[in-house]
Every structure is written in structure tokens, then in C-alpha cells.
């Protein structure tokens, strides 16, 4: 299909700007690189940062997977996949294992990623300190000085008040022991997958005009205290469809009496497990 637009929508100057910024982001793990975010044909807050990163990465040989909430079939994931199908003509897949580039919102796939895969996160608010300090001039200085006392105080106050750190998603991490970083609004269940990941992870915040990266095999620690170690969510249930007991579960209301059922949020993981089970049975 011919379109009046360049391959992957962005012009080459814009791609070069993004690529230079991405290389600096990788060279300074967890540091937010300002970049000349462009106005994309999808709204800010709907993945424009991730889309720009993906556009800077994609080539004709790539196989792209896009997930939102862990699912390939949520409307915004479908729309972003449709966009790249249209402006780059790349192959797309729903299978994590088959993808060379995975763009995600709010989840990390359950099956471990490989060295030859790239994970691109959509980030609404790249600054982990923003809710504690709205002024960018101040938070920049805190990062420069590695002064993260404000965050530690917040977490400590949580413990004093609730007996817990009351953050369940977008749980802050320290990258390579230097920069306090937002993992994007993934549930803290996914935080351990960030630590020493074989795959390079790239983060794009379009509206806030920042990029950052976590290189492979990089130390990523979720903030915690010695007497309050970091813990992930656990369920009493298994997935009602595939029986998985190790995946992040969505709670689904199935009738008007409020009956609940729990199913995998990672739809590819769930369907692969069910396919495998069917094969074994046959």
C-alpha cells in the first residue's frame, strides 16, 4: 500500500533525533533524556512515546507485538498495531516468542524475554518524584544529586500509617544503583522482571518528552526497607482458563450477582498454555 508518509510515519531527521536520544538513554541507565517529541496522529497519553520509540526502531524485517494490559486485543493495542501495519507494513504477531519488538502498556509479558527482543514501554509520567514534587527544576536537581530522601520519607510514612508500602503499581526502582526510575504503571508484580533482563528495555513518554532505558543485565531494585522487604501481589486463585498459578490475574465480574472469576492478564501466555494442554491431551 502506498502512503504519502515516510516509512514508519516519522521523517528521517526525527528518527535520527530519537536514535541519538535512545543511545544516550542506554548509556546512562535510568536517566530521563529530554527529546523533541513530535505530535503523533494518536493522542498524547495513548502511547505516543512508545510509538515514537518503536518508529525509530522498526525495519522491514521486524515482527511487532503490541499489548495493553497484557492483552493483544484491547482496542488501543489493536489501533497501534494497525497504525504500524499501515505506515510501516511490518509483520505483526500476538505471540511473545515470535516478536522482535514488543510495545507494551502496563505489563511485562509472563514468558521471559530473550536477548534478541526489544521491549518498548509507553510511559505516562516518567518522573517517579512528580507526585511528591511537581516542579521539574527541583526534580532534575534531586536526580543530579541522587537525593531521593523525599521518596524514602513517603514510603516510610506509608509503613507508619498502613503497615505497608501503599504503592501497587508504578512502583519506583533504582537502576544500576544510581537513578530513581519509574517502571511505568506496571503492577509491582512485574518489577522483578526488570532486574537483569536479557532484553533491552526502552521507555518513551511522548507528552512529557522524555526517553529512558534499562540495558540488559542491569541491576534494578524495587525500593524497600530491611524490615519491610519488597513483595509482589499473590492470588489465592489460579487462572480459570489455563490453570496458571504464577501469572498476573485479571478479576472479571461474570454476572450481576457479582460472581468473580480470575484469568491471566497476559492473553498470549494463557492461550499458549491452553494450546499446550490440548496437545498433551491429544
Amino acid at each position, binding site marked *: 500500500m502506498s502512503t504519502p*508518509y*515516510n516509512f514508519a*510515519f*516519522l*521523517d528521517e531527521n*526525527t528518527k535520527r533525533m530519537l536514535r541519538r536520544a535512545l543511545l544516550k538513554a542506554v548509556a546512562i541507565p535510568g536517566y530521563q533524556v*529530554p*527529546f*523533541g517529541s*513530535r*505530535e*503523533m*496522529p494518536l*493522542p*498524547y*497519553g*495513548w502511547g*505516543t512515546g512508545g510509538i515514537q520509540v518503536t518508529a525509530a526502531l522498526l525495519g522491514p524485517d521486524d515482527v511487532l507485538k503490541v499489548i*495493553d*494490559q*497484557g*492483552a493483544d*486485543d*484491547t*482496542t*488501543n*493495542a*489493536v*489501533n497501534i498495531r*494497525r497504525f504500524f501495519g499501515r505506515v510501516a507494513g511490518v509483520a505483526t504477531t500476538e505471540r511473545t516468542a515470535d516478536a522482535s519488538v514488543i510495545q507494551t*502498556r*502496563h505489563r511485562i509479558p509472563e514468558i521471559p524475554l530473550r536477548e534478541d527482543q526489544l521491549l518498548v514501554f509507553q510511559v*505516562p509520567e516518567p518522573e517517579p518524584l512528580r507526585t511528591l514534587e*511537581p*516542579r*521539574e*527544576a527541583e526534580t532534575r536537581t534531586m536526580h543530579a544529586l541522587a537525593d531521593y530522601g523525599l521518596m524514602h520519607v513517603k514510603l516510610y510514612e506509608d509503613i507508619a500509617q*498502613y*503497615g*505497608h508500602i*501503599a504503592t*501497587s*503499581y508504578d512502583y519506583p526502582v533504582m537502576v544500576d544503583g544510581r537513578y530513581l526510575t519509574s517502571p511505568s*504503571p506496571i*503492577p*509491582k508484580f512485574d518489577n522483578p522482571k526488570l532486574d537483569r533482563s536479557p532484553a533491552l528495555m526502552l521507555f518513551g513518554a511522548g*507528552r512529557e*518528552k522524555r526517553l529512558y532505558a534499562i540495558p540488559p543485565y542491569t541491576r534494578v531494585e524495587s525500593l524497600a526497607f530491611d524490615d519491610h522487604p519488597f513483595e509482589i*501481589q499473590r*492470588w489465592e486463585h489460579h487462572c*480459570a482458563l489455563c490453570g496458571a498459578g504464577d501469572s*498476573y*490475574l*485479571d*478479576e472479571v465480574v461474570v454476572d450481576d450477582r457479582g460472581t468473580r*472469576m480470575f*484469568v491471566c*492478564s497476559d*492473553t498470549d501466555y*494463557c492461550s499458549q498454555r491452553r494450546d499446550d494442554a490440548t496437545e498433551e491431551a491429544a
Partner: protein
Amino acid sequence: MYVAVKGGERAIARSLELLAEARRGDTAVPELELAQIRQQLRLGVARVMQEGSLYDEDLAALAIRQAAGDMQEAIFLLRAYRTTLPRFGYSEPLATQAMRVRRRVSGTFKDVPGGQVLGPTYDYTQRLLEFGASAASNTVEADEPLATTMPRVLDLLDAEALIERIDPGSDPEPTDLTRDPLMFPADRATRLQNLARGDEGFLLGMAYSTQRGYAESHPFAGEIRMGEVDVLICPEELGFAIEIGEITLTECQMINQFHGGNGVPPQFTRGYGLSMGEGERKAMAMALVDRSLRCDELGEPAYAPAQNQEFVLSHSDNVEASGFVQHLKLPHYVDFQAELSLLRTLAAQQRKAAGTEALA
């Protein structure tokens, strides 16, 4: 048996069909032509060009039609298109003092050289709905020809050294906010660029707040002028400027009282607003907010929202704001689930604690 929801692709396709149908409406009614929009909705076109940061009346008209008259959607369409346009160069600074003026008013002097020129304004229309077809337009003859050049009102004060001097030659090379991210603190040229692209409604509210005590601004409308200005570029290979066309602009220069401070003597100070097409409300609001954001430079106490540059500049853009406010309708069920489980844990703890107390 529960089946995971599928069919996002098909749902989107159907939604697009419904949208196309709703946008077009009854096909017995002729579709709007772009020339009609460009001519008869020219103020809407001007706003879309201004906040879309692209001076092209035809594209703005197309965007308004495609957006079914939703101005912010039309602005968004134009911005997204603009991203794909190559940049051939930068124009020379526009010479608004050489504007071919069609409207020019000053609130600070009863009369000024060149006169007060009302031009095509809604100001004195009395806002009575005019039922029936609008009167066929006739060519309006001017009572007397307008002066070919009109000195800017503020230049008259400048001659008397009563108003702060500005030396455009000393301005640093401005950053281009469509290419480089906004950084804080932002200099005045960058702030003005942001305000120029900013949402008219947001700026209007901010400007209004400065008049109601949230920042002491004491403004006077020194001059508002609207008309046509030549656009010049200076290609490197030529070495001299050539005219590539003209655009319609509205410029507002506010005059603000200033008692001195931060090493600056008592004098009038300036607030500046500029808008593509006829955009007087926007230009005036912009000028007021420009002035309030100069508080640091002039040593004024900063306590009001309209004096806080991070607050104003980070929230002025309606494409950013609209996207982020509306992204809340995207699924968030993974994070919601995380919050649910946290809340259940906290509630269980509280019940347990209450039970322990009751026993004790």
C-alpha cells in the same frame, strides 16, 4: 463459560463507519465545501491554524470539517499532519510595525497617529441573533483611506523613555518548541512560543485570574492591531531576504504599570501577544499571561498560578491536555486490580486490628 473479549479490530472498524456516517449526517443536505468553511467560519479557521501551529487556511478548513467542528480535534489533526512536513528554513522576524492594518485600537490614548480603526469587529454588534439569511455582503467602501504606515503606539512612549526598552537584536536565538522539548526555567521567547500554541480557553482563564488579584498586573491595552504582514526568508545561497507571501496576524501589546525592582527603574512594562488570523481574544490573553510570567525577571513576588511558569506552560497545550485527560477511558484494569488487592489487604488488617481491640 467466560470467553475473553475479542474483536477489538472489528469494533474499531465498525466505530469508524458509524463516525463517518454521523459526521456526514443527512446526505440530502449538501456537504460543506472547504471554501465555505474558510470564508464563512474564518475565525474558527484562524484558531485552528494558530493552535495547530500551521498557517494554511485550506488544511485548517479540511480539519474543521473532518472534526465535525470540534476545534480541539481539528487542531490535533493539523498538528499531526504538521509533524510530517519537511522544514526548509526559518523566516526572518515578522515586521508587525509594517503591517497593512485593517484594525487598530488603543485603550491608552484617545487618538493616535493613524487613528483608531475599528475594522471588522464583533465588539459593537449587540449580539442579537439575526434570524433569516444573512444579508448579501456588499463591498464596504472606507470613508477615508487608511494611513499606509501606522507607528506602533508603544513606540510613542518609548520616545519618552517611559516604557521599558526592548532591543530585538539582543534576543538569543529562539528555541523551536516543535523540535526541542520545553525546559525550565524557560526564557521569554520560549514562553511566548508556548503561549502562542496554547489553548485559548486556558490562557483566557489564566489572564482573567491576573485581573482578579492573582498577580498584580495593572494592564492597559496599549495597542491591538490586525492586518497583513509579509513573510520573508533569507536563503543561505542568496544571501538576501525574499518575500514568500503574506499572512494575517493580530498583535496585542499590553502596557503594565511597574514601580521598579530587581534593578529596573519605575516605568511601564510590556506584555506581548501575537496570533495568526483574527485572534484578538487570544492575543490579549497571551499578552497578559506573558507579563505575569515575567515576575522573576522584574523581581515581583510570585504567588499566583499565572506567575508560575511550570504551571502555566506545562498545562497550556490542549493537544497534550486533551490526550491525557481522555486517556483515562483506556483500560486500566491491571492497575485497578493491583489497587483492589492492596485495598483488600489494608481493609483486612483494619478488621483484624479492630477485632483485637474488641477482645482486649
